[in-house]
């Protein structure tokens, strides 16, 4: 077990390092002179020189890379070029929006997806099943930002129940903040819930066809008992795999959804950093997103290894 953990941890660290190198190369080395890229064609020579000094471009690339990576460990990511604030501080502020948003969306997706999937499987090949599956097809095909706009139309502009965008901050009371996150989380969760519903349905059908279900039925258990106690727990393994995979979609989904709802989170910051040609900010932000995905994937793998020792062998 320890060996498995060590090996998985090491491979995660290696992937993170390669990811950091790729990001650094793409953002700082490939564009030629990042100072010119940041300032645009109309830049004066003095401005370019000043920004070169700020970026540390007078030093070799390898030194700059090491400086950035070592800064990551002590929380010193440099000063954002466009905001004039430490990058670490900017990211910390924005995390308070993006993390609750992603968690809320994941919760909604799991709740809706599993419930619908179980209902569809319990009434397989009925009209209810066909209806749920048709809805899930639509859900998979509709991107979260389209859902977002439709939800704003319905719940903000027409019914006036929820705000159409913006974020009051947590200081104004949790309820107001949660209300601001409700529609974004909902639109983020709908496509994921649709995928989960499909996976849950097919896993449930698989489980329901097993022999132990027949035994349970012969014992005289009710339909509800069979589904709750025997079918659902057995169907959960593929469902949990999907939830793990989905979390990375949710994390990157925040990039678009935060822009739909003008939420001051990390996703909006990415687009603002691109707009402001803020390479200093952007490289740490992108690494944060990619790092989150890599760490989540590793955690899902480790969870499997704990649940099922056969899976401790590294996948090829």
């Amino acid at each position, binding site marked *: 077990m320890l060996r498995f953990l060590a090996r998985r941890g090491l491979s995660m660290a290696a992937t993170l390092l390669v990811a950091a190198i790729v990001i650094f190369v793409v953002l700082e080395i490939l*564009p030629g002179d990042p100072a010119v890229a940041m300032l645009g064609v109309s830049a004066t020579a003095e401005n370019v020189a000043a920004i070169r000094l700020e970026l540390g471009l007078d030093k070799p690339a390898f030194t700059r890379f090491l400086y950035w990576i070592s800064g990551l460990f002590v929380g010193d990511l440099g000063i954002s070029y466009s905001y004039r604030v430490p990058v670490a501080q900017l990211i910390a502020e924005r995390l308070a929006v993006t993390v609750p948003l992603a968690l809320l969306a994941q919760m909604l997706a799991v709740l809706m997806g599993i419930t619908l999937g179980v209902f569809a499987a319990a009434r397989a090949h009925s009209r209810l099943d066909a209806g749920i599956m048709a809805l899930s097809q639509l859900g998979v*095909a509709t991107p979260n930002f389209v859902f977002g706009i439709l939800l704003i139309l319905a719940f903000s502009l027409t019914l006036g129940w929820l705000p159409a965008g913006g974020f009051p901050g947590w200081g104004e009371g949790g309820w107001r903040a949660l209300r601001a996150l409700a529609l974004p989380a909902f639109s983020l969760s709908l496509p994921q819930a649709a995928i989960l519903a499909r996976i849950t349905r097919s896993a449930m059908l698989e489980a329901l066809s097993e022999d132990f279900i027949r035994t349970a039925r012969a014992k005289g258990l009710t339909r509800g008992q069979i589904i709750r106690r025997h079918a659902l727990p057995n169907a959960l393994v593929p469902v949990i795999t999907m939830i793990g995979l989905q979390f990375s979609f949710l994390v990157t989904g925040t990039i678009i959804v935060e822009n*739909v709802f003008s939420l001051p989170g990390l996703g909006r910051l990415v687009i603002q950093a*691109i707009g402001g040609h803020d390479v200093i900010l952007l490289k740490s932000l992108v690494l944060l997103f990619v790092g989150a995905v890599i760490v989540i994937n590793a955690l899902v793998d480790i969870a499997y290894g704990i649940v099922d020792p056969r899976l401790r062998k590294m996948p090829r």
Partner: protein
Amino acid sequence: MRRALSHPSFMIGLVLTGFIVTIALLSLFWTPHDPGKMQILQRLRPPSVQFWLGTDQFGRDIASMLMVGARNALLVGIVAVGIGFVVGMMLGVFAAQHEGSLLDEILMRLLDFTFAFPAVLSAILILTFLGPGVVNAVIAIGIYSVPIFARLARGAALQVFSRDFIRAARLAGCSRLSILRRHVLPNIAGLMIVQASLQFSLAILAEAGLSYLGIGTQPPNPSWGRMLFDAQTYMARAPLVAVFPGVAIAMAALAFNLLGDGLRDLLDPRLKER
């Protein structure tokens, strides 16, 4: 053929795809109005006989813009999926041919690694480097789909290589290339085409997302994602302006998803989702 006709999701997918392709082709010759023509006096009009789906904030005809947008979406899909399909298949089959070699190992590790970069993020990274625009968006989406096709092709080709008829063909003196062309490629084509259809829908969604964020297709070229973004500002006054492009995006993605699901069932009944 009869099986195809009686397969509901395949037929719905086929009809929807046919509709979108027809609209896109038609837009090459005819649109109800000039999609670029601004008529400020006619701005944000509701649907009418003159403007079937109404007008946008510049008084441009939405129906005409959606038609040209369909062309844009299909082109993005064709080129992006084409890049992924061709490059991915070559890499995958090549890796399968050299299974277990160092090259195969390196290739597979590289592909594993690209999965750590989520689609939107890698597209953003590539677009930051290449600059915004529809051509670069297509390249970004295409690059992202290479590993998906490569893995699929490798797995499928490995299976084909282990079959007896390949050994027979080798013994009969067929060259490597002719084995690939006559035996391997036809046998993995079905699987690849199914994946291509599903990737097509993802490509359309990705382009719409990038254009919504302002780093995909640039104005004045009509793009469904960009139309949605523009419409959001005027949504309180003209809600339908935002609804139509959203419906178009979802319909196109749905069309290719259903087509892919249907093709999968028809080409290989064993893979049928229960």
